[in-house]
């Protein structure tokens, strides 16, 4: 416990590819940021993150917790969240706080991409990729490993290109076969990678930016913003400078933490945070199919040391409501109901 600062807020963003935990102070400044790979184990990864934070921080320093990301409900049960927010709002809040006056947010994560338009700190319009994940981080990841290049160097290579090749980026399956084809034609790796970045940007703008007015200042965040090749491709396509904030990888978590500070202030300083010790608890999740009606809902049950913490996934609410009421944290119950069909 060497870092003695008081009044911190924890933000947890559990996404498909990465799980991020940040601590911000009362001014919204990032004090600590953890970027962990989810590796298909959201629950374990959150616990791992909490353990590593527990080494330097104590429970008393944490004033509130917020969760976001596709596994926000799961994370909320584990940590005892004060606020559970969707990724779009969380990203917009973070960008508006760290980059005052921002008008356009480009966000590309593991399997989501988002375009958020902001005016005076308020979201005016947004769009998010639908079923297709072409152009998101996991596709770049996959291509990097196919070409046996560490993903961190991917962007550097793209910048070195002299003549970017045109790659069909509409679909990631076709993009891959097109890349293979271009390699077989003899194009340099740099040109292909740069062409890929341009194709992904084209795809992003066609899918999400259709009919939307993109104003400057533009902020690019999410894991893919680390890729300098993608930044350059965006700048080229938009004709405006694109700013990548220092904590671009963990902006969702920053937003969740900021929202937690607002929520706790509204409630008079009381937080639901369960403390870092939850990381020591044996958590377990299981799922089963309820066969009581033709809907065959998949029920997910989260247990902490044999005790059922939470359930969700049922359309009728039978399993959710069967829990003793003191188990349910009101913020989480509301969110569960919202995410349950």
């Amino acid at each position, binding site marked *: 416990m060497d870092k003695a600062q008081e009044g911190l807020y924890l933000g947890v963003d559990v996404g498909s590819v990465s799980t991020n935990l940040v601590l911000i102070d009362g001014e919204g400044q990032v004090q600590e940021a953890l970027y962990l790979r989810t590796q298909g184990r959201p629950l374990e990864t959150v616990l791992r993150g909490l353990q590593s934070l527990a080494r330097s921080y104590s429970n008393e320093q944490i004033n509130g917790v917020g969760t976001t990301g*596709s596994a926000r409900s799961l994370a909320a049960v584990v940590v005892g969240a004060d606020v559970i927010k*969707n*990724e*779009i709002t969380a990203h917009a809040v973070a960008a508006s706080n760290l980059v005052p006056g921002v008008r356009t947010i480009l966000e590309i994560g593991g399997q989501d991409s988002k375009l958020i338009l902001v005016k005076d700190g308020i979201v005016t319009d947004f769009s*998010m990729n*639908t*079923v297709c994940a072409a152009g998101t981080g996991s596709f770049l990841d996959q291509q990097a490993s196919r070409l046996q290049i560490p993903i961190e160097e991917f962007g550097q290579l793209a910048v070195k290109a002299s003549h970017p090749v045109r790659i069909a980026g509409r679909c990631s399956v076709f993009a891959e076969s097109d890349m293979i084809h271009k390699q077989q034609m003899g194009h340099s790796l740099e040109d292909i990678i740069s062409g890929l970045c341009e194709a992904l940007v084209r795809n992003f703008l066609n899918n999400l930016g259709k009919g939307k007015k993109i104003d400057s200042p533009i902020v690019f965040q999410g894991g893919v913003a680390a890729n300098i090749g993608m930044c350059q491709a965006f700048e080229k396509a938009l004709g405006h400078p694109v700013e990548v904030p220092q904590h671009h990888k963990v902006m969702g978590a920053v937003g969740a933490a900021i929202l937690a500070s607002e929520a706790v202030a509204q409630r008079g300083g009381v937080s639901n945070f369960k403390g870092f010790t939850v990381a020591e608890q044996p958590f377990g999740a299981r799922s089963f199919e309820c066969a009581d009606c*033709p809907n065959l809902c998949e029920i997910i049950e989260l247990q902490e040391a044999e005790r059922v913490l939470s359930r969700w996934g049922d359309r009728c609410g039978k399993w959710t409501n069967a829990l003793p009421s003191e188990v349910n944290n009101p913020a989480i119950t509301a969110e569960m109901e919202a*995410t349950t069909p």
Partner: protein
Amino acid sequence: MKSVTDKSITIGLPRALGYYEYLPYWRVFFESLGCAVVLSPPTNKAILDQGVRSSVDEVCLPVKIYYGHVRALAGKVDYVFLPRLISVEEKTYLCPKFLGLPDMIRAAAIMDGDYPELLVANVNSRLPGGGWEQALTEVALAIGCSRSRIKEALRWGKKAQEEFENTLEAGEYPPDVLARWEKSGRLLESYAPREFTQKKLRAKDNKEPVIAVIGHPYQLFDPFTSMNLMGRLKEKGIKVITPMAVTNQRSQEATIHLPKRIFWSFGQKLLGGSLHFLQEKIDGLIYVAAFGCGPDSLVGELVERYAKRSGQVPTLYLTIDEHTGEAGIVTRIEAFLDLIERKKVEIETENDKDDNTVDVALGS
């Protein structure tokens, strides 16, 4: 063929497509003839799976679900009433999938077997005397009803439908109204139309945000297909309004300036409803499109563009098909509500500063 003289006939009504707009008419008509009416169960996963399995690939999700509902009535009814909706209003058409519905179902019945017997009749208002009355008379004659009895049943049916439409146009929440008609014993009650007080819709006076949800009734009011969109909005304290509450006259007035008449009746209802709401004070507009719906792909685009041009009403366009992930829809709805909530707070703070700046604040 079984007829009314053989004691009671059971008529099945699939809980899909036209059901959401004509339930009172159909139900009261058949019950007045002395038939028992059975509704298929609310859409569930088994019905969806059945529908997706038996239907042709190109149709939209609501049509696929219709197959499942018809099949669910097999063995429970003597006939399923399956009108071929060609045109329900003058100078309009329904989409080709409604026109071909009986044929598609018949084809599926041949392939799969185990389908109930169908009572099919054409509803075509473009022909003289070819509307609902003609179609219902045709099916009633087929099951052996007398002309005088049919005439009486039509009178009751039309009265019920009128009351239903009046209630909706008065702004009552459509699922609540439908729920009343789903309960049996309706015929025993009197049909005196109630007095309705037209409440002018004005979001800025209301505390809760008002969102216009635009979409086909058979998609919006089926909680399974719409992923309970309406329920989710209501839970969050949103006041939901739908094109069902817009009279034909208002809808026509709202589209009068368009360069071309919309010849799909659903399209007219959705676009006219949207443009009408855009003139009123609403906080947001959600367009729910059925994936694979031809008219939606055009009408939805028009709605989105007009909403953008008005520059004041945030819009959200949701496309739903049988593969649509729940999580993505929930995230979008939540973010959209956050957007509306924050905008509303901002406008209210502006209003507090100066009461006369409403329009300025909205336009900013």
